[in-house]
């Protein structure tokens, strides 16, 4: 049995604070929140190692060059912010298969990993197509 984790904050409070954070960011630096463009930059960075010519000629990687910018750092920050919050509130859990997935589809980490990988691929293709 897992150790009972402390209850989180109200989603209205945390969501409202996230809204204030966005307003401050727009006011101070003109930056809105986003994440999906960073995945394009990461893909370009990796591809550049193997096929630099292809990346250099790509229309899309010219528009979204493989570089570290505000949003890239924002996404990196999200990882550390979540890690700090989880580690300081006894809610960090190493978990390979989520609860509700396990109940429905079983404990296989490979199965879950493959579906998460495929889902991520489709979701990101769609997100970029929708320009979001």
């Amino acid at each position, binding site marked *: 049995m897992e150790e009972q984790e402390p209850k*989180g*904050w109200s*989603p*209205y409070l*945390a*969501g*409202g604070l*996230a*809204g*204030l*954070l*966005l*307003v401050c*960011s*727009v006011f101070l*630096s003109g*930056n809105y*929140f986003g*994440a*999906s463009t960073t*995945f394009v930059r990461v*893909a370009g960075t990796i591809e550049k190692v193997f096929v630099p010519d292809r990346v250099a000629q*790509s229309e*899309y990687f010219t528009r979204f060059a493989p570089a*570290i*910018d505000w949003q890239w*750092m*924002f*996404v990196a*920050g999200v*990882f550390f*912010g*979540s890690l700090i*919050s*989880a580690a300081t509130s006894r*809610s*960090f859990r*190493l*978990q*390979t298969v*989520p*609860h509700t*997935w396990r109940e429905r589809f079983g404990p296989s*980490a490979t199965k879950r990993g*493959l579906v*998460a*990988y*495929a*889902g*991520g691929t489709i*979701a*990101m*293709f*769609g*997100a*970029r*197509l*929708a*320009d*979001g």
Partner: protein
Amino acid sequence: MMTLAGFITGMAFGFLLQKARVIRYDKQLGALRLMDMTIVKFMLSTVIVGMVGVYLLHDLGLAELRFKPTVLGGNIIGGILFGIGWGLIGYCPATSVAAFGEGRTDALWGFLGMVTGAGLYAEAYPLMNRTVLTWGDLGMVTIPQLLGVNHWAVIVLFAAAGIFLFRWFERKGL
């Protein structure tokens, strides 16, 4: 300096996401199955506060609005694909990173899938640009412009509808 600001803002955002427990597969699927509205409460609260604040700054001449062109072909087909993928992975782009931060290792596979999807889209972009992205291109439009009303009318209505929805969620225990 600019990128450091991005890092700190991201940390604060990731902190809030984790505190509200909205980055879990169980919560995200709960919302998609209309059984647990926690993430909808979080997102809609952010949107309402952000909407009021950003438009206030804009009206005071203190900030620039930034929005993207509306292309119905890309928005609708991309939206459907995103929905199918989201249902499978159970994380969205930023929450996959946050979920990995709280120890959910399946989010890493999802993250790698998303990088793959971004690379595939870069390959498909020239084709999409000739086809899907030419369908229903409305250009730079906003809802207030389309309706021909003042933006505050839309903001007030949207916020009221959001609060009404919140009350309904609480009554239904969602």
